[in-house]
């Protein structure tokens, strides 16, 4: 029963969401399930935070190597939770503009998140130098297209192209945008999308019918 009931829940939930497109009397049930989904997914954030507390708490308790950093993590988590849940100025929510939580978002979370993502620029430059070689026709085609897009989708490339004696008469922006992006890229991406979509529909059907059960995990 530990696996059969969840499989039944999956089937019923999925069927309701499909049928409510076709049977308007079921729309209220579809709306209710929508709201439930919203709420349950948010509990997953609680699960995430609680899981971090448990895992890092254990590391601090055992004084595992680098436990000081785990302590920093926990302190950051708890501070954010306190500021965001409990420190409520009169007439405002804790997440309103001008609150301590808002300060944390603007001056700690946002810079850290943005800086972490921005490291990728350096690594993509390094990876391009090390790995991007024209070893075959296909890789040359890939490299050539990447070159065209990188060089001529920026103002400097366009300005330089326009100075070229014969080629400068042709608008490079139109070539890149209409022919490469809107032509070959659109065709390739559409082929991938069609293939992936058919696969996704097939997997979704298998999930509803209980054939695909990996999301249940475990052997119990």
């Amino acid at each position: 029963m530990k696996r059969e009931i969840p499989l039944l829940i999956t089937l019923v939930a999925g069927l309701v969401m499909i049928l409510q497109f076709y049977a308007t009397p079921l729309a209220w049930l579809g709306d209710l399930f929508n709201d439930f989904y919203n709420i349950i997914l948010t509990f997953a954030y609680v699960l995430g935070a609680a899981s971090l507390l448990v895992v890092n708490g254990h590391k601090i308790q055992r004084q595992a190597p680098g436990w000081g950093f785990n302590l920093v993590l926990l302190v950051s988590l708890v501070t954010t939770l306190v500021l965001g849940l409990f420190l409520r100025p009169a007439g405002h929510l804790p997440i309103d503009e001008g609150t301590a939580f808002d300060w944390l978002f603007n001056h700690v979370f946002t810079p850290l998140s943005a800086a972490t993502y921005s490291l990728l620029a350096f690594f993509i430059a390094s990876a391009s130098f090390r790995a991007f070689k024209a070893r075959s026709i296909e890789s040359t085609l890939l490299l050539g297209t990447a070159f065209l897009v990188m060089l001529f989708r920026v103002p400097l490339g366009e300005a330089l192209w326009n100075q070229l004696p014969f080629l400068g008469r042709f608008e490079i922006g139109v070539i890149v945008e209409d022919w490469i992006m809107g032509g070959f890229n659109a065709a390739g991406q559409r082929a991938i999308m069609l293939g992936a979509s058919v696969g996704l529909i097939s997997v979704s059907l298998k999930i509803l019918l209980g054939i695909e059960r990996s999301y249940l995990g475990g052997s119990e």
Partner: protein
Amino acid sequence: MLRRLADLDRRWIFLVVALAVVAPLVWPLRLPIEPSAPTRGVYAAVEALPPGALVCMSFDYGPGTKVECHPMALAALRHAFRKEAKVVAIALWPEGALFAREALRQVGAEMDRAEGLDYVNLGYKSGGEVVLRGIADDFRNIYSTDLAGRRVDELPLMSRVRGWKSFDLVCDWSMGNPGLLQHVRVVATQYGRPLVAGVTAVTAPEAYPFLNSGQVQGLLSGLRGAAEYEVMVGHPGTATRGMDAQSVVHFVIAGFIVVANLLYFADRRERRRRQERNR
């Protein structure tokens, strides 16, 4: 020497990239930016709005991609408010709700627009596509309050808003999933609402099939798209400022690739020569 170059410590590459970014920001080149057809599509869609039109803007991006998507949102807000349109903001990402607040406050103050009358920020709900589907014929299915906790029915603008069909245009500023795909699936395809989008450059190539099929009327791609739109709206901002640095770094990276390939071909020729000598 070729071997030394091929085994170059990547920190030198990092340094060159850093200098390539900093230099144009300190000494700008001020190169002209020509809008592309997909950007003109976004501009035309907003320009066609009649006074008092209702626009829904979905702020589906986070701090990591704020540099690309936030200028798009700011430019679109300026454009929409200039057309006397009313804006309802939602977010499918938690950070998007606060960025929506920042953008609406900034542009609202610039153009003397009042919250509750000219714009409303309904904030974030989790679930992506499920939220968009849940809105369906009535936003109140999902949103009972706005971001600040005020009841939706207390906001004068919301008296005009029912479901997706209330909107003349839907704009999505998106960095991934949930984002553009979900809006295409629900808002554009199921409810037939005109949809324009601004996406990060990473997701832009995947959006072209939707642009081609007409499910999306216009598309801003990355920082370049944001800069093009800023120029069209007549309010150059951070995106325009960043394009000089973008140009220089692209040429630097292209240079790295050229050098790497020259080294590769030289090395391959050398290895072939050695093989022939050994035979």
